């Protein structure tokens, strides 16, 4: 043990005694030689002693620093070489920075969103538990309080199980009311998530009643916004009209469910907790050692038992355990993986390009290398020199790339164009840096290997003989490595282009679906459902604004996902009620002027008018999809329908189908009731059709709403055009990003092909000169050079098409109205590439035809 330590110590000291060591050894050897020379003459002494320099080197090597020293020398040399070729170095570093930067940026998003555990203690044990609807194939349905209680009581898999439901409090900030998002949570909520308040406490069981005193727990951020009073616990805060006592403050960064600032106790005796009221979410923590599968099978058993125990309430209701991470990350996963794949392609193409550049350079440096080899340099040493060079390039590119990624990610987080979950956690951090460095080193070694291998199988004789313009060496056939790289680049670029083409076509399909209404010149704003019947007052005010042609309102227009639907609610007189997905019918409430404001079409009958009041005969308008489903062979006008009421409404009109915001399916059958004969279920979407630019009326409309209701919180006032654009923002973002990567890939690989062909032309100037001197026409030369490029391209495109055929399947769920094997996308993708490659080949080929035979031959 001591020996070993002593040895290490002596070795470590060595670099500091380096000069002393060299002097000592040299003197010692000189002494030896001198003594020997006295004995048997200088020449014999030297013969007997051996190669002094080599021995000196060996002695030094013994101390174990040889490797490091020669690496340092290699790096120094590489640095010098690169400094002498600033153009080459700049192109290589820039290409790599592009690839590494883009992939680092995407990876930092993937890392934060997909890979890092959620910011909870032992987050892998956190689950969401949902009800399922077996007959409808739905697996994440909100839960009734009754079922939650039964699950909690009967299951053994969970340490904690709690319900929560979103809630919000209104606060006046100056004159402007703002909504503070929060949640009502039951007892096990905080223990399940494994968080404790930094101050105060959470809720007590006796506080989970409607009659209990009003209390709340604050988020760290909200506490800070309230002034960060360290003695706030125990004091009261005014929220809207109510006063709450603050009992605790949560640690910084805790905000679950998303964006929560406040938590209130969930009242277990709430009258809304009836057995048919499915509105709760359930979060649970698995017991240590219990797997998701075990928990799932247990909860299924319990659900089956409950089905028997409560046949009426729990008919066809099952239960489903979903890891919280999957729940939160869910939909983003596939899209992010696609982006990662796309950016990986870009990175590979960039690498192939740089590898090609290096290969070209190493061919140019063959004379130098051959000289070094014949002077006694080891092959490994030469290979190492080249590796050092490529590593240096990769690391420089990596550094630049990371810097670029840092800014990209900052901008991405600030803009949050696609509302990613966990976006605030995205940053270029340690793990990401590790990725970038690992990628850079791997890349450096990978693309350094090609030239290094080339140089380690030297053909010394020929290389030494090579002149600067030696004939023949530029031919593709003789340089399989380079051609392979160029073909691989083309293949990757084709794959990416096809992917981008698919997303582009899918996007076009999505926006091309007929809307069923005219969004131009319409201003919209969403109001809470509580407006009820007073909406007519507001609409009168808005209609009175100069420039407003029509003002109307409807529930969640056009029927977006907030609109409610139901499979057995609609009754048609004289028919039994149906069930199942095919019977799903949307429920809409609309004011008289709404259809005109929205610019919807009328197929037959009439829309509502001001006359359809509370005391007038009950009426309804159905959409075309409903008419086609339920009245295929008869006139629906005059038929009687109802939706959970006693009285029947007479169908007075059939409206054209309306495409929903963001909803990309077939239009759902829907029925509209006039607002004075039904109550708003959800939010209320107010629309104003204007004769002037809609946004110019935004200020006036806001003032009218405020004058009508001072305290009401309403959504953004915006044009319907903008809302529609917002609804396709996510697919558009993916499309743009993948298209961006594809264009990048196209440019980089075209430059790669250009470089390869160009180099070949440069090397073959002499040969071309001879050919032309012997009578070859320009066309022949052009064909010859182009032919080489086209052969390359054919291989690349074929590989790329095959690759795309296999890999575009992962896009399937991201596509709308387009098959992943869409022929047009495949044709466009490869077509664009073929054009780019043709151009990249044509430019150097043209130059080849302008070779002056005399000039070329004199060149030798």
């Amino acid at each position, binding site marked *: 043990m001591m*020996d070993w330590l002593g040895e290490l110590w002596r070795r470590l000291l060595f670099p500091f005694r380096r000069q002393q060591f060299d002097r000592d050894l040299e003197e*010692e050897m000189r002494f*030896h030689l001198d003594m020997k020379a006295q004995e048997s003459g200088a020449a014999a002494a030297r013969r007997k*002693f051996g190669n*002094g320099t080599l021995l*000196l080197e060996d002695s030094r*090597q013994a*101390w174990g620093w040889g490797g490091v020293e020669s690496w340092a020398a290699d790096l120094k040399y590489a640095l010098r070489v690169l400094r002498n070729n600033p153009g080459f170095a700049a192109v290589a570093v820039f290409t790599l920075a592009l690839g590494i930067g883009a992939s680092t940026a995407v990876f930092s998003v993937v890392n934060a969103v997909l890979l890092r555990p959620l910011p909870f203690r032992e987050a892998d044990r956190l689950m969401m538990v949902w009800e399922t609807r077996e007959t409808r194939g739905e697996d994440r349905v909100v839960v009734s309080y009754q079922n939650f209680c039964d699950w909690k009581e009967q299951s053994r898999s969970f340490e904690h199980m709690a319900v929560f439901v979103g809630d919000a409090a209104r606060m006046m900030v100056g004159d402007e009311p703002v909504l503070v998002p929060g949640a009502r949570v039951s007892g096990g909520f905080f223990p399940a998530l494994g968080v404790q308040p930094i101050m105060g406490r959470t809720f007590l069981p006796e506080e989970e009643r409607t009659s209990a005193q009003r209390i709340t727990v604050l988020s760290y951020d909200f506490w800070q916004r309230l002034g960060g009073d360290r003695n706030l616990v125990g004091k009261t805060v005014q929220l809207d009209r109510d006063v709450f006592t603050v009992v605790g403050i949560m640690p910084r960064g805790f905000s679950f469910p998303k964006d929560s600032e406040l938590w209130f106790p969930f009242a277990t005796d709430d009258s809304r907790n009836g057995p048919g009221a499915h509105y709760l979410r359930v979060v649970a923590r698995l017991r240590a050692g219990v797997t998701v599968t075990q928990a799932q099978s247990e909860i299924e058993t319990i659900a089956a038992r409950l089905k028997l125990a409560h046949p009426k309430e729990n008919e066809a209701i099952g239960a489903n355990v979903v890891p919280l991470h999957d729940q939160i990350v869910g939909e983003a996963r596939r899209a992010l993986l696609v982006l990662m794949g796309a950016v990986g392609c870009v990175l590979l193409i960039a690498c192939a390009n740089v590898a090609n550049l290096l290969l070209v350079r190493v061919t140019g440096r063959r004379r130098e290398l051959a000289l070094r080899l014949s002077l006694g340099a080891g092959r490994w040493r030469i290979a190492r020199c080249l590796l050092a060079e490529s590593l240096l390039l990769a690391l420089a590119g990596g550094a630049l790339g990371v810097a670029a990624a840092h800014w990209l990610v900052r901008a991405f987080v600030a803009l949050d164009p696609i509302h990613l979950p966990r976006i605030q956690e995205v940053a270029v951090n340690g793990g990401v840096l590790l990725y970038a460095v690992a990628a850079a080193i791997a890349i450096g070694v990978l693309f350094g290997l090609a030239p290094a291998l080339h140089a380690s199988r030297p053909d010394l004789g020929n290389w030494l003989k090579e002149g600067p313009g030696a004939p023949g060496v530029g031919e593709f056939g003789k340089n399989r490595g380079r051609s392979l790289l160029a073909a691989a680049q083309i293949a990757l670029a084709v794959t990416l282009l096809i992917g981008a083409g698919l997303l582009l076509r899918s996007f076009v399909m999505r926006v091309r679906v007929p809307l069923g209404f005219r969004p131009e010149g319409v201003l919209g704003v969403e109001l809470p459902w509580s407006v009820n019947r007073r909406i007519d007052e507001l609409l009168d005010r808005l209609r009175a604004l100069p420039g407003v042609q029509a003002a109307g309102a409807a529930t969640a227009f056009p029927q977006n996902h907030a609109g409610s639907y139901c499979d057995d609610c609609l009754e048609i007189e004289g028919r039994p009620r149906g069930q199942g997905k095919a019977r799903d019918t949307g429920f809409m409430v609309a004011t008289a002027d709404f259809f005109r404001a929205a610019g919807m079409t009328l197929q037959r009958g009439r829309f509502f008018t001001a006359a359809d009041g509370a005391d007038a005969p009950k009426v309804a308008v159905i959409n075309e999809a409903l008419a086609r489903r339920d009245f295929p062979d008869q006139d629906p006008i005059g038929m009687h329908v109802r939706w959970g009421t006693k009285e029947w409404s007479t169908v007075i009109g059939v409206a054209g189908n309306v495409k929903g915001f963001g909803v990309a399916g077939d239009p759902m059958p829907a029925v509209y009731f006039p607002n004075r004969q039904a109550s708003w279920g959800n939010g209320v979407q107010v629309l104003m059709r204007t004769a002037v630019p809609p946004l110019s009326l935004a200020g006036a409309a806001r003032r009218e709403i405020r004058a009508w209701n001072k305290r009401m919180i309403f959504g953004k006032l915006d044009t319907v055009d903008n809302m529609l654009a917002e609804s396709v923002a996510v697919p558009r973002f993916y499309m743009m990003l993948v298209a961006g990567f594809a264009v990048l890939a196209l440019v980089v690989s075209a430059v790669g092909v250009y470089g390869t062909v160009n180099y070949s032309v440069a090397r073959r100037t002499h040969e071309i000169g001879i050919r032309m001197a012997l009578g070859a026409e320009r066309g022949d030369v052009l064909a010859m050079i182009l032919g080489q490029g086209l052969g390359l391209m054919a291989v690349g495109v074929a590989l790329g098409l095959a690759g795309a055929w296999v890999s575009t399947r992962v896009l399937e769920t991201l596509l709308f109205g387009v098959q992943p094997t869409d022929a047009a996308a495949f044709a466009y993708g490869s077509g664009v590439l073929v054009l780019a490659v043709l151009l990249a080949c044509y430019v150097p080929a043209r130059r080849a035809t302008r070779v002056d035979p005399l000039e070329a031959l004199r060149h030798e």
Partner: protein
Amino acid sequence: MLILKTLARLGPMHGYGIAQHIQQTSEAVLQVEEGSLYPALQRMLIKGWVTAEWGQSDNHRRARYYRLTPAGKKQLGVELSEFEKVMRAIAQVIQPA
């Protein structure tokens, strides 16, 4: 082993002296590149089997003297017994039956 043995027999000695001694005592059978002595000495310095310091040679020149350390002595013992074991084995194999 030869170097260690030489140092054990002669006491502190410089490189030239060690080379001379090995050649003389082996009656010039063991002919090595004399220079290869020095890398070997470096390895022993690292292992801590010998130490080196500058001193005066017989003809009043500065020379570097190597001295066996206790660890070096132990190593010599180990190597000698290893060597003897091998020699014995070889001897038994080549002995006429």
